[in-house]
């Protein structure tokens, strides 16, 4: 019987040491890395209307699709200075994601594409290695036409691959953090 006494002691000890879980409600998680909102602000170099392109997805990876808005039409044959703002609006106040990208600028690059040759893009910023990032850029519109402007953010792209520093996404690799398509009219 001694044997079983010993076993019971071991059993009891384990139960005491490991039991008890609290019945509190779990704390909610507000996702820190989620980017809900991307806004591209296009300011004409020679003056004129500022155009914003925005995509906003307040439920993050939830079922609702992002809402895309374009504030107006772009002027033909015009040079715009572009800048991007990235926000996490699931937090209050909204958190800017720009800083994170700037801190790890060598691991991020934006790519700009336009259909129907409605615009061409050049990078206005560089990371520590002299490669482009794309938070700042310049956009030159063509003659009147309609098309899509696609903005893609790649995480850990191969910035040294052929064409990547000129904004060609083909060889970039990495993984996509943002991808937004804006229907645009140039007039």
């Amino acid at each position, binding site marked *: 019987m001694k*044997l*079983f006494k*010993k*076993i019971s002691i*071991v*059993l009891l000890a*384990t*139960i005491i040491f*490991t*039991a008890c*879980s609290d019945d509190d*409600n*779990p*704390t*909610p*998680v*507000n*996702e*820190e*890395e989620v*980017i*809900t*909102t*991307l806004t591209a602000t296009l300011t004409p170099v020679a003056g004129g209307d500022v155009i914003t392109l925005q995509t906003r*997805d*307040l*439920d*993050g*990876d*939830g*079922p*609702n*699709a*992002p809402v895309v808005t374009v504030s107006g039409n772009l002027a033909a044959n015009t040079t715009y200075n572009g800048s991007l703002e990235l926000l996490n609006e*699931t937090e209050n106040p909204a958190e800017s994601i720009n*800083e*994170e*990208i700037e*801190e*790890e600028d060598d*691991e*991020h690059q934006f*790519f700009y*594409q336009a*259909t129907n040759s409605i615009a061409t893009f050049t990078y206005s910023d560089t990371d520590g290695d002299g490669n482009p990032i794309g938070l700042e850029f310049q956009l030159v519109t063509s003659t009147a036409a309609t098309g*899509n402007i696609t903005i*893609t953010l*790649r*995480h*850990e792209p191969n910035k040294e691959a052929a064409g990547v520093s000129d904004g060609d*996404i083909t060889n970039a*690799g*990495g*993984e*996509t*953090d*943002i*991808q*937004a*398509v804006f229907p645009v009219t140039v007039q």
Partner: protein
Amino acid sequence: MKYYLLLLICCFYNTISSQNCNSNFSGVVQDFHDGTPIIAATVYIESLKKYTTTDNNGKFLFENLCDGEIEVIVSHISCETKRLNIEIKGNSYFKVSLEHHIEELGEIKIEGKSNNILTKTSQETLLKSESLERFSASSLGDALKLVSGVSSINTGNSIVKPVINGLHSSRVVVMTNGVRLQDQEWGIEHAPNIDLNTAGSINVIKGANALAYGGDAIGGVIVLKPSRVSLKDSLYGKTIISGQTNGRGFSANSSLTKTYQKGWFMGAQASLKRFGDFESPKYNLTNTGLNSKGFSLNGGYKSFEQGFNVYYSFLDNEIAILKASHIGNIEDLVNAINSQNPLVIEKFSYDINPPRQEVTHQIIKADFYKRFENFGRLEAQYDFQNNQRYEYDIRVGDDKNKPAIDLTLKTHSFRTSLKVDSNSSSTYEFGFNAGFQDNFANPDTGVRRLIPDYDKYDFGVFAITSLKPNENTNIDFGIRYDFNRIDAKKFYLSSRWSERDYDKDFSDIVIDDLGTQLLTNPIFNYHNISASMGVSYKIDEKSSMIFNYGLSNRAPNPAELFSDGLHHSAARIELGDLRIKQETSNRVSGVYRYENNAFYINIEPFYNHIKDYIFIEPTSTEQTLRGAFPVWSYNQTNASLYGIDIASNYKFNQQWSFNHKSSFIKGRDLKQRIALIDMPSFKTVNIISYSNSKWLNFNSELQSELILRQNDYPNYNFEVYVPTTEEFVEVDVSTPPPTYHLLHFQSDITLNLSTKTDLNIGLNITNVFNISYREYLNRSRYFSDDLGRNIMLQLKLNY
């Protein structure tokens, strides 16, 4: 010390010599269980070197003994030898009970065939330590593929989940040293966290016919048992060291056991594995290494009548996941699928970078048993498991070193069973178990929980009876009832809540509204009934048949109910469903076995009808800011799975033999009238082996493994618009990879270093011809080829 002994002996001598030496010592030797006399048992008085044997009534007699203490050894073939200290005072009578069914005690039976199967009427296969040791450096799932009908579902090469007749995850129960493993049930990425080196043998039972282990094992039960402890004064152990070319790694495992004749035993085991990036024939598989550490301690007391065992095990696995499988959105997935090579190939490294998993599993167990004469055996066990799982994704900024998943799963369970086996033609077993599980999903990850916090309560009772109406027939019946309760606290995005229409059916479980998120408290109760019936019949000396039927219910697991979120390495959004009900399986199966001296064949057909079969399938795509993602939802249908497993062996002569294993399975979705997703394809393994005991126990074998393309698959391919190329492309997530054929070679010799020590040197070459292939059931197949050639040298030292 010597003097004391001398003194003691003198005293004894004095007392003995001064007493009467005309005493008779008589007695009876009988079976412990049913009290029947044991004929021709040897009774030996050690100190006097006197022998006798029992007569037809189990009786024995020694005449003219001196009074005093004597040591008597009672032995009988196929029984456990018993030592007794008996005091003779005048004419003495003594009843000795021997254990007749020695295999139940788990002793090593020296004569005849040891046949430690757990069930008599199921499709069951036993893997012994000799076969398992070869897999010392690999995973449980790899070793189990030795059993026909068992395959695996993988994420890369280190996360391997066993699949029994097409079923896996929570449909397969894994028992290790009597403990039901709780860590591997959710989804494909959660492999059983188990060190194969802790197992002395493994029994694989197909189907839910082992009700003692749980009623929900629709796929089957895998029982890992530690090496058996023999009751003698001994110290023994073994060390296995292996080094291999693929992954440029090593694995070491060492164990030491001390046993005492009186029944006490203790043992310790430790293992270590370290691998760098593995490689396919053409390229390095960047970030696929493994770092595993584990140890276990075991101790207790064991005698025929009673015993106890205390066990602790610790295992920490750090597993790298192929970097090229980490995907940002569907466009990346398209690129990855369409690219012949992985998108990230770097130089070899031992680094384990994100994406990676780190899982720590601890088990504490205490059990005891007691046998009651002419009645049966009572067992009770308590165990506790702690599973800590971290999954690290590739993250940015301050979150870089934070896990994306941080789950702590704690499980307590208690079980007890009573086996009434006093009658050898009918035994009864009754059991009860209760369990409590607590899952905690740490919010500090900054990522919405994929699996929520929950408490789970389990309660089960069962009764099993085994009848033996005649020498050639065994019949088993079993019935089991299980109650499961899940009490979860889960946050839902308000948008998801209404998209799934939960606002209509589940509005009463919302306990807090945080604007964009809702806190809910789903509580589900499940009542499950399982039953099994089996008959085995020995047709003649060479052939036998088994037929069995099993009914089982499985309650949905937390992943199937609550999964909600983005799985990066699969580039898919996975959604559970609160409406999922339990699934019910009706399985009939049979075994036909023929065996003569040179040849055996085992044929195992089965048919499994599963009502409300739970599975995950692609259902749509969702747009996020990152782009489109395919959505995979848990769904239910009625399914039928059927197939046949064949294993056979032919011995040409003492040296040469041929071994064959095949398994064929079909899975149908009866509602949609299409094939089931993720069903293993036809596989056949043929082995030719040569062994010669004269050449240092030389063994070698050449194995051919042929896996045909799965032609029966559901087509879930879909089209998606890719903005960067401005076109619609088809995302081929369905088409299985082509047929492949691999050759493996293996050879070993054994050197006897001393009477107690031997050294086994083994050479294993897998994928001899360095063939490039992809396996349908490997989730990394979209991204890279499977492993190329591996040469492994293994040293096994037994001492």
